[in-house]
């Protein structure tokens, strides 16, 4: 009988070892360890043995049973692992296929620039003023020290609605409203972004509608050097660190002294390139110290008040910054153009 045990053991262990999958293993388990399995049969056959052999035989069969059970269990873990691995492999996907085409919208580039400027100045304690686009001549021109028939009115040909109403030609109109509203109370720190309109034929560099952002600071001792420092801040924010500012004398009716402001070319770092036409500088805005007449007309005493103002064209900034050559792109709104601006900058 002992031989029989050995035979069953070697058969069972071999069968378990060669089981290829969990189904086979289960069949093997039933074949040997099941209620009608070989090992149980041997237990049953024990009753035919002489009494004295029974304990030893029983023990041997038990050992066999436990041995085969362990082998089955071990094999089962092993085969389960393989089965899982096979299942996972069957689930293999092509990771090079595109992900879900989730669409993220875009902010219009002019609005992007506007918000960038707003955030910079809000951080420095400025408020963001607003005003009507259909404006009174009084705010657009009269209060800005540009009386009727002033030659400077030629500088910005105007869309009039009637003799007293027009589409604002510059965001200066908002500055005037804010100055008037302040009733002589200082300090004032504000920027006023918005759409403005001039009688220009639309082409690559002209637009009858465009966007400006002006800034105004009024206090007791505001200086021209304050203007320079402030604009340096803005230039660095808009065009990257290390920008320098250059003033050139100019003329605006509402400022005196008036300056054109150049920024050192961000594309060649001032060495000279095609963008700055070799000069190393790019003209970006106009600015100056608020004209005493503007203070007077708005109820401030120019003797004890000083201030600066500046105005920047948002299209100009965006065109420079992003290399846009035709201003009409901003108003055509081609999706391919708009999608250029779908990332953090």
């Amino acid at each position, binding site marked *: 009988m002992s031989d029989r045990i050995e035979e069953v053991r070697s058969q069972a262990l071999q069968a378990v070892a060669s089981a290829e999958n969990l189904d086979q293993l289960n069949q093997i388990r039933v074949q040997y360890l099941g209620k009608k399995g070989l090992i149980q049969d041997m237990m049953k056959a024990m009753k035919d043995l002489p009494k004295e052999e029974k304990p030893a035989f029983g023990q041997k069969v038990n050992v066999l049973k436990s041995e085969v059970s362990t082998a089955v269990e071990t094999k089962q873990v092993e085969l389960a692992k393989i089965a899982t691995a096979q299942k996972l492999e069957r689930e293999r996907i092509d990771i090079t296929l595109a992900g*879900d085409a989730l669409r993220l919208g875009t902010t219009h580039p*002019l609005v992007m620039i506007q918000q960038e400027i707003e955030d910079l100045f809000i951080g420095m304690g400025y*408020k*963001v003023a607003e005003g009507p686009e259909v404006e009174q001549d009084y705010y657009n021109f009269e209060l800005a020290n540009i009386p009727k028939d002033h030659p400077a009115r*030629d500088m910005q040909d105007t*869309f009039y609605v009637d003799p007293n109403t027009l589409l604002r030609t510059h965001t200066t109109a908002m500055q005037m409203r804010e100055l008037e509203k302040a009733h002589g109370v200082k300090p004032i*720190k504000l920027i006023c972004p918005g759409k403005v309109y001039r009688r220009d034929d639309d082409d690559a560099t002209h637009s009858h509608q465009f966007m400006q952002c002006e800034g105004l600071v009024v206090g007791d001792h505001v200086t021209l050097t*304050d203007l320079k*420092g402030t604009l340096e801040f803005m230039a660095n924010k808009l065009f990257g660190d290390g920008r320098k500012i250059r003033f050139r004398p*100019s003329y605006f009716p509402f400022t005196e002294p008036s300056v054109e402001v150049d920024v050192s070319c961000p594309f060649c770092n001032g060495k000279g390139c095609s963008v700055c036409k070799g000069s190393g500088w790019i003209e970006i805005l106009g600015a100056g110290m608020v004209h005493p007449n503007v203070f007077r007309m708005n109820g401030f005493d120019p003797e004890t008040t000083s201030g600066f103002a500046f105005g920047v064209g948002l299209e100009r900034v965006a065109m420079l910054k992003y290399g846009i050559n035709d201003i009409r792109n901003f108003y055509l709104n081609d999706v391919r153009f708009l999608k250029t601006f779908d990332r953090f900058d």
Partner: protein
Amino acid sequence: MKLSYKWLGEYVDLSGITPEMLAEKMTTAGLEVEGIEPLAQAEGLCIGEVLECEDVEGTHLHKTETCVGEKTYQIICGAPNCRKGLKVIVALPGAKLPGGTIEAKPLHGLESNGMLCALFELGVDRKALRQDQIDGIEELPEDAPVGETDVLGYLGLDDTILDVSLTPNRADCSAMWNMAKEVGAILHREVKWPDYEGQADIGTDTDFQINLKTDKCSCYYGKVVNNVKVGPSPKWLREYLNAAGMNSINNVVDISNFVMLETGQPLHYYDLAKLKKHEITVVDDRQLTMTALDGVEFEIKTGDILITTDGEATGIAGIMGGEESMIDENTTSLFIEAAHFDHASIRRTSIRLNLITEAAQRFTKGIETPAMAKAVDRSVQLLREYAEADGFEKTVIAGETGYVPQVVTETLSHCNGLLGTSFTMEQVVDTLTWLDFRPEVNGDEITCHIPSYRIDIDGTADIDEEVVRLLGFDSLGSTLPEMAATVGQLTPVQSFRRTTREMMKAFGFNEIVTYTLVNEDYATKGFNPVGEPVALAMPMSEARKVVRTNLINSVMEVVQYNEAHQNSNLAFFEISKVYAKGKEDERLAIVLDGDMQSDRLHKYAIGGDFYALKGIIMTWLSRFGFAESRIRIAENQMDTEHFHPYRSAELYLDRKLVGVFGELHPEYAAKYDCKRVCYAELSIEPLLTAKTGRIRFTELPKFPSVSRDIALVVEKSVSAGDIVKTAKNSGAKILVGAEVFDVYEGEHIEAGKKSVALSLTYQTDHTLKEEEITSAHQRILDNLSKRLNAELRG
């Protein structure tokens, strides 16, 4: 303005200063030089004489033998005025002209060793030439030295022209004398004007009368000059006029132009014999047609300033003289007019008549009144010298110049205070002295006596500007304003816009910015106009005539443009103000053309339909804290012209209209070559004024909820909204949610009815017992049955 470097040198010593150096210094000081051009550009020229000239048969060409000193060449010339004996400018082979290098090559089969030149071929501006100088080759004087090779020098064309862009406040610099003063101040060099003063203080008694009948002419200087001999101008005079871009006519007319260029004062010389009376009356109350100097007729209207003699118009004041009193070769007596006319009136008249003459431009930009006396003095001086004039009558002056010398007192500390600089008194005084401001120092005070031509200077800020522009902006430091702290923050509406933008962006929409000005149709017939449109007085085109009263057409144009450029599945939004007479509104426009999100590969799409749009709008409203209970969606009865009548809705918040949204009417969409487009135009105002509650946290429910799904069969006309509302209003207190999750019509459902699947959620402050649920559920079913005749589907 065109500034002649050579002419400028008459008044300021420019030695050691090249035109380029001058240009840079001027630009730095605020007189921007936009270009530097030689007056003429030519190398390898010489003066020649046409010895023989015969016509080449069958052509307009001439075959010449032209002598250039020792040698004679055969040169073929096409100019009509080419003739034997003419002294000419010759460009021999190898000569360089703006048009290229001259080569010896056959012309019409005939050997030609060079070219006989017209001045424009040397690069002289055609505007500075007479027609005959453009039609033919230049005819040199008989005494021109044959063989001379410095032709440009001989012609006075060895000059450089600086194109100076003058800002409106520095119109004084369009007068050469004043420009010279400015350059002197920039270079720190002395400026010498001709000794003209008092030249006109001579003359016999005159019978000439001047009457000013309008206050638009404040002052008028008139002077009769007899025994004038009209003839060609001296060479220098022709050259300077050419350099300034004017052509030479005769000595007298040239002098009037030259004096204007020098002093800035426009002059008009009348042929005295052609004036019907020795009288000039300035009026502004006539309406007539007159012929001006250039032979063109102009409509004069009331308000235009007019020069009249014996009641008849002789000139459009300050703009152009009349043809009848023009100076010609037979003129022997002149009447000189130097007057001051109202700049605004001249501006209006010249713009209306489209007569933007040199004189009109100068009046428009403003001239000092003392320039009248300067111009008359200088005229007398030059007419005597170059037109042999000797019969002068006394100057007649009508009106007053009103000139009061300008004195401005600034302090050094205020100047430095405004500029943020630390200029010394010496620097400032030096600068002001060079400007001829004759500064007087008294302690910190600097009193400036402003020269009459600097009409732009009338306050301390002007002085500060002069100081900083001439001492240079390079010395400026960089500081930030020192003042009481201010709070910088966005206003509620500004934050609202930003949040809306972020949200729309997250939903995949591209922001657009479109034009405010639209055609009339768009504003009057467009969707939900805010009121009567604001129309431009003088529109530039039909397409940009009125201020838009709504956004729909502008937005649809963008959709149309993109569709036409193969861009599909479009999702745009725009935030913009719209205007009407006396009204302003701010709108959010949203448009969906195609799928909002879609993916062919992974096979899904969020269609751009009514419900997608509604979802966005409801999310937008809830983002700002407006509970669904405050929002009403009503059938669109406001605008079924632009919208699909059964797939659009009116949106109300707290009973205030916010806007209309839904599918566009196919006929309207077709105008933009579109099929199914969903659009919303919503007013921001009602959202800004509506109150929103604070964010409040309520404890999370501790007990589980129970859901029951039911299917109801109702009449087709019963809306999902009614079903949900009826369920909620059944009085079942434990009902916390009612949601439609399916709607079905068709097979197995009776015609005219539909099946609506509803999910009901129950929850309360303890674990629900079955009988509580059953009772509440029954109550709801009863109510649905009673109110809506809803049957539970088996």
